[in-house]
């Protein structure tokens, strides 16, 4: 009967129900989009680190992220290779520079230089051309998401980087950057040349270990041998990149802040409507109390009302959120929705509605069953 009573109380006043549901729906959509953007951004920020095949990273001291690192001279590689447990130390170049479109406009980009054959990092999701076509003279791979920004539309289109001609010889799909600055993949040597970096230099070294080697022990040893640079595990570099882009820039704080705001707005709306519903049904709750119901029984009715509102609001909110997620998939910053995030959102919605029920529960706790005689 708890559910029946809660359901009837809810549906008895349709206008109030609609206000409650819209409040939850608004909250869910806002939180889903904000958290989806947060996780989408996180995924993009660490995509290069995640894709690289190596347990350790050697980076310039204080490197903030994959894209933001000073130049390493090249001697680090030899020091690394002589360290017990290190199998390979593969150079990777990454740096911001300007892409000059054939029509004269310019666009900031990140040139990423790797040799796919080295096995550390290579562009993925190639939809036109191949890894080998990147090696063609002036060859670069660009992502189709940034065609418009880069002023290209197809394979063979040309542009300039630092005065040197480049030609699109491969196209990827879905390799995006958090800053919406396009990644331009090319060979290691061509990247050095385009960026004016000395031969043998690199932005990072991706370190592959001997089978069975302990990453933390090797990291300690490498750090001893290379005191002027930083040696990071994949997880550390991952965390540092997220910290820089999401919290150093304030973007993550804004996204999480938006999500918290959404929760607060939802909580206030649901609390207000639950409270007024409880107030309207106060005589009924007093009757229940007079009939001998425990206060727990009445609390369950109010919580069931909150729970039902949560389930309905969540269902409708998620339907809208998923539509927005799908519509964002081909944009520069796709919103992520995973089963885990959907589960977290459901738990948050239930929590939000449970918290909203507190004021109504406090009201009903003070109920005097003697009021049934004064009606």
């Amino acid at each position: 009967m708890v559910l029946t009573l809660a359901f009837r109380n809810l549906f008895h006043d349709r206008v109030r129900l609609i206000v409650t549901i819209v409040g939850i729906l608004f909250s869910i959509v806002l939180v889903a989009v904000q958290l989806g953007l947060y996780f989408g951004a996180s995924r993009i920020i660490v995509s290069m680190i995640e894709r690289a095949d190596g347990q350790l990273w050697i980076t310039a001291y204080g490197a903030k992220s994959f894209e933001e690192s000073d130049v390493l001279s090249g001697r680090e590689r030899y020091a690394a290779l002589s360290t017990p447990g290190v199998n390979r130390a593969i150079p990777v170049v990454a740096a911001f520079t300007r892409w000059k479109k054939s029509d004269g406009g310019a666009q900031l980009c990140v040139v990423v230089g790797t040799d796919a054959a080295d096995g550390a990092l290579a562009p993925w999701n190639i939809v036109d051309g191949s890894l080998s076509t990147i090696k063609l003279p002036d060859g670069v791979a660009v992502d189709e998401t940034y065609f418009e920004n880069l002023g290209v539309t197809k394979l063979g289109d040309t542009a300039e980087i630092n005065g040197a001609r480049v030609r699109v010889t491969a196209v990827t799909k879905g390799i995006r950057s958090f800053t919406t600055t396009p990644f331009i993949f090319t060979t290691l040597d061509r990247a050095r040349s385009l960026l004016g970096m000395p031969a043998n230099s690199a932005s990072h070294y991706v370190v592959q270990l001997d089978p069975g080697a302990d990453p933390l022990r090797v990291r300690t040893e490498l750090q001893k041998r290379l005191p002027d640079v930083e040696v990071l595990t994949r997880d550390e570099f991952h965390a540092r990149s997220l910290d820089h882009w999401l919290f150093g820039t304030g973007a993550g704080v804004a996204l999480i802040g938006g999500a918290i705001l959404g929760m607060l707005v939802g909580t206030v709306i649901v609390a207000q409507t639950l409270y007024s519903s409880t107030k309207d049904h106060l005589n009924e709750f007093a009757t229940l109390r007079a009939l001998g119901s425990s206060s727990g029984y009445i609390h369950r009715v109010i919580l069931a009302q909150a729970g039902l509102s949560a389930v309905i609001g969540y269902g409708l909110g998620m339907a809208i959120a998923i539509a927005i997620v799908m519509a964002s998939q081909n944009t520069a910053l796709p919103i992520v929705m995973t089963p885990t995030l959907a589960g977290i959102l459901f738990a948050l919605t239930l929590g939000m509605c449970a918290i909203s029920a507190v004021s109504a529960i406090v009201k009903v706790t003070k109920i005097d069953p003697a009021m049934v005689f004064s009606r």
Partner: protein
Amino acid sequence: MTKPVIAKANHIVKELGQGASKVTALRDVTLTLHAGELTLLMGPSGSGKTTLLSILGCILTPTTGSVSIAGEKTDGLSAEKLADLRRRHVGFIFQSYNLFPTLNAMENVRLALDVRGGAKGETMQQAEMALREVGLGHRLRNYPANLSGGEQQRVAVARAIATAPSLILADEPTAALDSENGHAVMQLMAEIAKNESRAVLAVTHDPRTHAYADRVVRIEDGRIIGDERRAKAEGNVAQYDLTRKRKSHA
């Protein structure tokens, strides 16, 4: 032979309000309710009838004095323990019926059983039985808005008896009813009171109800001023033959 005692209020004093607005609603009231009796508690407005009913129903606690229901003392019990006592031993019938407008007759009765933790199938069966007993077998799925005042009060009676309480307390059960329905409800209560393990106390100032009472207790200014046992006026009762009416609907 003395009938078993169902409820006992001993030297009850009840003060309401505080400071300058404090009033003494009950002054040293002692009342014993016996099984198998319909007792009417009569008195003018403000005489303390409803306060005494509330104390006997464990809704209010006395300022001094003691109460026992079905042999259980209520002194010092917490609100939750008092609710538990009500749940197990007391059924209420209210002047304004206090039915849940969003629940149908069956559900209204089931609710009283559900707060006791009854299983669904069991509570449905008991609720239906109680409604048939009050002649509403044909109105099980009707909502209060679609029932007459008399029918609504009969649903309230069904809700009160469904849990088989030892004590049924009715607050002005006929006040909102016309003559015919008032008599019908009192007839029902008189029948309910025939149960030898149950006492019924009805607060009223409706003289139509006298005919159904086994006992009339008069209260004024918070004091009991009369306690009269009486033989029922059978002719008057027979005039409203509900038994036949119920059989036709059940």
